[in-house]
């Protein structure tokens, strides 16, 4: 029964992702992407990683995708964008990369099926509670966490630099505009 739910969520994830690629309307594609992320969260949950599942929903589906929808809403794409997109979905353009990716997928499937790469059982042997994630992050992976926070800090400083209200010194040299209220 567990296996059934696992494959159900997996199928939903794959179908939703296929729909993401083939939708012509950007917002519809994003909605399918959200469904796909939710399905992946279900998979995480079933594999015994509830913390990863919750973060998948909160961070990816709940925050990043909201911002993507936000931006696409502001672009206000009409029928023109849909037509452009449909021109891009010409088989001539995607057949080559598609075949190459297919070969890689086949290889991966063979490796998994023939048990070439380590453990091939689908389910994790034990559940990973939140506390263990925290202990792992602040134990052996402490340096990785610190590095990630450095990268984020750099991003934050960069965003602040780009969005800061222009001071007089900057307006003279660069744009000549008055204050733009950040």
């Amino acid at each position, binding site marked *: 029964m567990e296996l059934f739910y696992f494959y159900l969520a997996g199928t939903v994830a794959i179908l939703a992702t296929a729909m993401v690629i083939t939708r012509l309307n950007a917002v519809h594609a994003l909605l399918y992407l959200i469904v796909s992320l939710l399905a992946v969260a279900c998979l995480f949950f079933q594999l015994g990683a509830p913390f990863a599942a*919750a973060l998948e929903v909160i961070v990816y589906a709940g925050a990043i995708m909201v*911002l993507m929808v936000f931006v696409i*809403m502001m672009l206000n794409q009409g029928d023109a964008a849909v037509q452009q997109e449909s021109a891009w979905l010409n088989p001539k353009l995607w057949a080559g990369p598609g075949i190459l990716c297919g070969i890689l997928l086949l290889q991966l499937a063979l490796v998994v099926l023939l048990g070439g790469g380590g453990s091939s059982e689908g389910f994790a042997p034990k559940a990973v509670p939140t506390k263990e994630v925290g202990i792992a992050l602040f134990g052996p992976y402490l340096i990785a966490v610190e590095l990630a926070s450095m990268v984020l800090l750099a991003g934050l400083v960069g965003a602040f630099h780009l969005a800061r209200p222009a001071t007089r010194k900057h307006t003279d040299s660069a744009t000549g505009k008055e204050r733009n209220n950040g």
Partner: protein
Amino acid sequence: MEAVTEPSVLATLLNIGGILLAAVIFAALLTWGERRLLGFWQDRPGPNRVGPFGLLQVVADMIKLFFKEDFVPKFADIPVFILAPTIVMIAMLMGFAVLPIAPGIGVIDLNIGLLFFLAMSSMAVYSVILGGYASNNKYALLGGLRAAAQTVSYEVFMGISLMGVVMMAGTFNLREIVLAQEGGWYIVPQFFGFLVFLVAGIAESHRLPFDLPEAEHELTAGFHTEYSGMKFGMFFVGEYLSVILISGLITTLFLGGWLGPWLPPLAWFLIKTFVLVVFFVLLRAAIPRPRYDQLMDFGWKVMLPVSLINLLATAAILIS
């Protein structure tokens, strides 16, 4: 519904059905209760004609909503337009699943209960954004944009303000958080966390005074300008559901949940939640709506530092 300690199938179904039904009924009654309370505070009767105390006003409104023309504009993105109002209802009702109402009453005892609530509340945002986008209307779009920015910002402080409670209780499990408060409610040591969560909760459910996404004096009705009939009703009930859910969650996290002397646990939970819901309504009656940039400024320049300092101080005290 008392004493459902061993989870049999029937008890579980009763639990789920009872909680869902109670949540929706309370949300519907709140449409009447809110207007009566507002009337009381503003020195006017409010809806008092239909039935005893005007209670049947709810039924009258419901009938009206069901029989109104359910209009879908031709220029709308129709599938998304229809999908949008359902999301808030579903997400909010899912949120009720992790709420520990009393010992034995509550749908699921999830060990990431608090994160599940945060996930559901971040899903509910889509309702407003997609409603605004799909309406294909200037006012709706502006409302949707505001809602997106507002909820994404306030979600940050909401999450951070809860971490103090999580650190003190040492768990994300809402039931265990309640049990951890037997020695004293978390509203005392986590007072700033409580304040930030309360304000963020109002912003998340975009209630007055933070209802900028639908501010009628500037955006007609914001994201639900094009909605009518029961589709509008779902946005409306979803908003009241989120008020009840946030109140229930504040009760659980800061006011000791079902804990309390003399009365049965269920009564304590309902009393505390009811008081908070009334407080939400009082805020609507008492505080004027800020400007949109003031709202965002307040969030990032006041709420974020307060919640971060609260987090740091809690951690420092716990470690020392």
